[in-house]
């Protein structure tokens, strides 16, 4: 029997935690001599107050969905993939190579091909850590950390020495051909006759991300592979007993995880910048860790957490852009949100549970 109703656990607890995080954030804002009210208003307006804000919020959300899913999938197999950053970088390389060197006449064709490019290189970057973990027992946390650094070096080299157009100062690839540009959500809305989110980077990849959530959900809870992934994650001896090969599942899971991280490149590299720039991932791989953990490694949770972080990212960006509040405040707010909703959640849950139990007992008595 549960101690409290499910809705209280999944909605009430995070909500109260979020409020606590906001309250502390307000204190921090006061402490640096700014107005919390103004900050909140700017953030909400900037991120959710207009189709324009939504256009950005959803763009960031899309990034975080992919990196969050990547961490979540691996987590189900008890693999802590810290390498989303590097895998997403490589995904970007995959997109760039495909779009620059293959003649792709239309985005509808370019999208799936680029997705393959992104997923394959992202997965490839996860393959070595996966294989080392499965075969040699090298701890995946170390190897994926190392592979992030190696990926950064590789991107640095490739962009400066291989993909950079001659004479360009910018360590970035050439622009992708016009024909491969993904329609933005505002284009799509315009197609429906609605003016929505003009000049915002959110693009069709958002739908790909939603689809990915759905597919990951189905993978984890509806397929044999997902069943085996979860079984291995919970108990390796039991997996062996059931005829599940730890090596195969470890490698396959990491390939999926790396592929998902790589797919993020569809959004930022193909959809937004339309060329590959240095540091295109901008830490989304690390935010993915927070997103996955906060989303309890469930695709729907990941979606919600990604939306929250998309909001914070965009709202925070607006805050830093248009007020005198330094942008680091956002990092602090993010930290507090992660802390209260993710790590200190029991601080709220425990008293709530007691409350519900007391209520139930009272009802039971009368």
């Amino acid at each position: 029997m549960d101690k409290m109703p499910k809705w209280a656990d999944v909605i009430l607890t995070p909500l109260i935690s979020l409020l606590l995080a906001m309250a502390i954030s307000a204190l921090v804002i006061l402490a640096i001599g700014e107005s919390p009210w103004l900050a909140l208003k700017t953030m909400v307006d900037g991120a959710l107050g207009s189709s324009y804000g939504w256009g950005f919020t959803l763009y960031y959300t899309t990034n975080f969905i992919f990196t969050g899913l990547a961490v979540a999938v691996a987590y189900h197999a008890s693999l802590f993939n810290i390498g989303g950053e590097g895998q997403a970088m490589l995904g970007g390389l995959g997109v760039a190579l495909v779009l620059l060197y293959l003649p792709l006449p239309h985005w509808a064709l370019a999208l799936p091909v680029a997705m393959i490019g992104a997923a394959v290189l992202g997965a490839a970057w996860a393959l070595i850590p996966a294989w080392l973990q499965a075969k040699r027992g090298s701890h995946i946390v170390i190897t994926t950390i190392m592979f992030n650094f190696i990926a950064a070096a590789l991107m640095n080299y490739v962009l400066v020495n291989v993909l950079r157009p001659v004479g360009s100062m910018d360590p970035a690839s050439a622009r992708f051909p016009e024909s491969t540009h993904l329609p933005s959500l505002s284009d799509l809305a315009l197609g429906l006759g609605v003016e929505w989110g003009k000049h915002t980077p959110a693009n069709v990849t958002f739908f790909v991300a939603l689809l990915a959530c759905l597919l990951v959900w189905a993978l984890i809870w509806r397929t044999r592979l997902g069943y085996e992934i979860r079984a291995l994650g919970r108990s390796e001896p039991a997996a062996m007993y059931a005829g599940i090969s730890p090596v195969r599942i470890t490698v396959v899971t990491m390939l999926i995880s790396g592929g998902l991280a790589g797919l993020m490149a569809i959004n930022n590299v193909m959809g937004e910048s339309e060329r590959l720039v240095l540091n295109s991932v901008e830490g989304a791989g690390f935010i993915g860790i927070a997103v996955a953990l906060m989303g309890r490694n469930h695709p729907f949770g990941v979606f919600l957490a990604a939306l929250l972080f998309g909001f914070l990212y965009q709202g925070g960006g607006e805050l830093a852009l248009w007020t005198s509040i330094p942008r680091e405040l956002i990092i602090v707010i993010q930290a507090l949100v992660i802390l209260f909703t993710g790590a200190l959640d029991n601080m709220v849950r425990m008293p709530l549970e007691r409350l519900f139990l007391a209520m139930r007992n009272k009802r039971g008595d009368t």
Partner: protein
Amino acid sequence: MDFNTIIQILDSAVRLMTPLLLACLAGLYSERSGVFDIGLEGKMLMAAFTAASVAYATGNAWLGLAAGIAGSMALSLIHGLASITFMGNQLISGVAINFLASGLTVLLGQKIFGLGGRTPSLTGGGRFGEITLPFADAMRDIPFIGPIYAELLSGHTALVYIAFLCVPLTWWILSRTRFGLRLRAVGENPASVDTAGVSVTRLRYAAIAICGLLCGLAGAYLATGLSAGFVKEMSAGRGFIALAALIFAKWRPWNALFATFLFGLLEAIANRYPNLDLGVITIPSMFMNALPYILTVIILAGFVGRAIPPRAGGEPYVKER
């Protein structure tokens, strides 16, 4: 490569490994007690900031060190609250602490000093000076031993010697003292400690307090030993490398010394030979920069077996669900 070069590279390796070693030992205490800590980076950064700020304000590096420890400990306390008292997810708490430090240091720095998160440069007593060991100058000219003593062993800041002393000290505490026994036990099987009548909570708090202390030393060394002030994000991923070294070291103090030395050495070599000319091709600087990481993976794959973490690590001690 002549003898002198080797000494210089080793000397550099010693400096580079010191913050890693301190952070690695910090993580060791925490994780041996069963509390995983991916917030080493954040604690180090916070300590660097508070140490530099106070050292600047007082002109005294030791006061700065105390402040560094305090800053780092404050974050440790948050980690303890989340992962011990409220039985939250230790990884999430660590991630949050990294974000918190990264944001707060700049926010406070900007508020106090108005230099975009930097502290003003430290001078004189605000920094840890280099300690010249006795007779270092006199011995300098003795062949072989002279350079080793005078160049390699002598001439580091106090924190380097403290860091190196921490290794045998940690080993001794863990293996020879009551506290160490209990600490190891609580990381392996907290129920055994609990049923033996010892408080799991108190032990784990003690462990993360030590973790905070050592991270404080590491951060203070970055800001007031190796450089002269705080620059935003100056920990530059060292906390994560320390974490990797900790796993590499299989959570053991002497191994930690070796693992962090390896990282320091590889970085020192990469610094010394930024473009390795192999005759046929010249390895570009990017790959020399990444060399320590590449070699780590290779060593890990080839020579180091499975690392088994403390059995109760990462799990809060929950008696009643």
